[in-house]
């Protein structure tokens, strides 16, 4: 090292051959200061009103759960096939409206209006959930088989294809289901709310349920990728697609299954989100954006990265709406932009993304 530095210095210009690139230290100090400021601000607000802090924190966590379910499907497809599925938001929206329509049919239109006082039986919620997920999964599969399979490796073209399909799905969804914002009724077997321990606060049960589902989805995906033969092939396929197929493994089958699974996760997100928040005609843009941000923050193709990204986005989203100074709360979108800038400034490939 010293010899190299001396040589470079001898050329009249000192070149650092190891260590951080220039400017990185200043950047790190700036980032640390920003994070410290945010932490102090949140701590100050939390000290002033701990009840709000708990509720807003739980809102953020449960929102993060929903975001993770949606984005995990997006990142799964990208990680294996390098396909950016721009139709992901449209699939989310389609599943929401489809499940709502099914539930209305099943309950005769009684259960869909009020959130909290549910009239829907367990089946009136579970059947739409399963059917909508499968339907959206099949649409994803058809999309992959018909349009994407023979364009493998052409990333931009595949992205354009999924954008086109996303437009068509979103437009047809609105044409058939009307696009009026409504929520699905949660099953009446679920309690409306739960009491939080160590306080006299109550919290909507369904939001907690979404968080639990997200954790279950995350753990199953992790177990599937790390512990099963299918996951082994998926991991090998991420590293070297051609080698895997040269070994006699039917990689096309794996691709098709992964695409199906990714679309099913978009559908699951759509039904959960449609029950927790609502189904809305702006869902396609909204959840495409959320998927994009989560994987840009977390790193493309990384499941743990998607969890971190979803957590960061959910918490910023939730706290930003409440903790900004009064009169500025509608600027909360700038916080998300700031989060994105912060991450990209330090790690252009995302927090857990692999460089290159």
């Amino acid at each position, binding site marked *: 090292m010293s010899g190299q530095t001396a040589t470079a210095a001898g050329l009249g210009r000192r070149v650092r051959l190891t260590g951080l690139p220039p400017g990185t230290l200043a950047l790190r100090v700036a980032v640390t200061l920003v994070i410290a400021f945010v932490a102090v601000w949140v701590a100050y607000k939390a000290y002033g009103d701990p009840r709000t802090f708990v509720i807003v924190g739980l809102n953020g966590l449960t929102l993060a759960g929903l975001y993770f379910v949606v984005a995990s499907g997006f990142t799964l497809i990208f990680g294996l096939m390098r396909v950016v599925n721009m139709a992901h938001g449209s699939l989310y929206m389609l599943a929401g409206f489809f499940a709502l329509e099914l539930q209305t049919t099943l309950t005769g239109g009684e259960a869909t209006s009020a959130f909290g006082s549910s009239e829907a039986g367990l089946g009136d919620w579970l059947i739409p959930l399963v059917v909508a997920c499968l339907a959206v999964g099949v649409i994803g599969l058809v999309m992959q088989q018909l349009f994407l399979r023979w364009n493998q490796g052409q990333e931009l*073209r595949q992205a354009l294809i999924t954008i086109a399909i996303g437009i068509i799905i979103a*437009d047809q969804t609105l044409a058939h289901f009307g696009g009026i914002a409504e929520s699905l009724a949660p099953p009446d077997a679920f309690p409306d709310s739960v009491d939080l321990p160590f306080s006299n606060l109550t919290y909507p049960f369904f939001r907690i349920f979404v968080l639990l589902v997200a954790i279950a989805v995350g753990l199953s995906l992790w177990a599937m990728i790390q512990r099963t033969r299918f996951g082994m092939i998926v991991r090998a396929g991420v590293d070297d697609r051609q080698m895997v197929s040269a070994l006699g493994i039917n990689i096309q089958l794996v691709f098709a299954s992964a695409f199906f699974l990714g679309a099913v996760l978009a559908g699951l997100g759509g039904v959960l989100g449609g029950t927790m928040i609502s189904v809305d005609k702006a869902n396609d843009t909204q959840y495409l954006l959320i998927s994009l941000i989560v994987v840009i923050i977390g790193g493309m193709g990384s499941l743990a990265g998607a969890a971190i990204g979803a957590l960061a986005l959910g918490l910023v989203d939730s706290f930003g709406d409440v903790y900004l100074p009064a009169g500025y709360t509608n600027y909360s979108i700038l916080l998300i932009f700031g989060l994105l800038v912060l991450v990209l400034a330090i790690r252009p490939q995302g927090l857990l993304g692999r460089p290159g």
Partner: protein
Amino acid sequence: MNRSALTVERALWWGPGLLFVLVLAVAPLLFSDFYLSQVITKALWLGIAAASLIFLAAYVGMVSLGQVALYGIAGFTMANLAAADGGSPIAWSPWAATLAGIVAAVGAGLFIGAIASRSYGIYFLMITLAVGVLTFYFFAQVTQLSGFGGVNNVTRPGIVSNPVRDPQNLFYIALIASAAVYLFVRYLARTPFGLALQGVRDDPSRMRALGYNVPLLRMLAFGLGALIASFAGILSVWWNTRISPGSIDLARTIDVLVIAVIGGLYRLEGAWVGAFAFAALDNWTRGLDIIGQRFNTVVGVIFLAIVLVSPGGLMGIWQSITDFLARRLSGRPPAQPSADPAGEARPASDTPQPS
């Protein structure tokens, strides 16, 4: 390529191009005021928006979906600073407001370029799309800047006159702006800076090894793209006399992408070719009852067909025709098939340029 083939090829590129420009130059005499304003002028400013995307894609290898957001920043800045209903209560001269809009868009472009320029290919596309959609949500939420449902009755410079009653002025302004953008980009491509950008497109690591600051070059290119996009944003405000968050939502971003892809993502002329096709289609489908309000499905199907069948868009189809005719007329054996440009995220460098 032998001499006669080259002559035929040049004639086939320049002939229709000159005819197109000539027809446009006298368009106010040929078309009704409605058609002039609703189709031709609209196509011209949409074409400028698409040109900013094509400039980045074709010359720098950056496919950006943030161009509509940048034009929105220019438009909203201009609309808020000039007197308007629903915006900030400031009344700058419309020209000063226009200049401020352009500066704001270029500033935003340089900043976004700085954070996105270290990402390549599909990552870059995702980041610019995320930034673009965030910009839409920003204007949708911050009603101090976007009014409730938009900034209306924006005061325009006197020369624009009334774009509905008197559409010729705005038409000629848009035509001159389009020509200026086209000639500027074609000129830029031959300067050392433009050549460096094309070098970055073809091989960033080799350019880095040669001592070029690749992220800086990409950032500056993105700023230039923002400059071009800002012209489209300003013209759209003059044309609409208003701007609302709906003017820059995801659907508009996709519209501009569709225009660029229909025209041809790797040829600058494609921007306006695609824009005319799009504006004419838009105008035509509005009259059809069968389709009703489902214009987006039509756009989606056409977009899908173009991407699947001819990734080079209409310009790609024309390229195949001219190649075929040039070979036929000069009696040359068929050349090797050219590479598929859209699939590789960069154009085939051996594509002949009409020069």
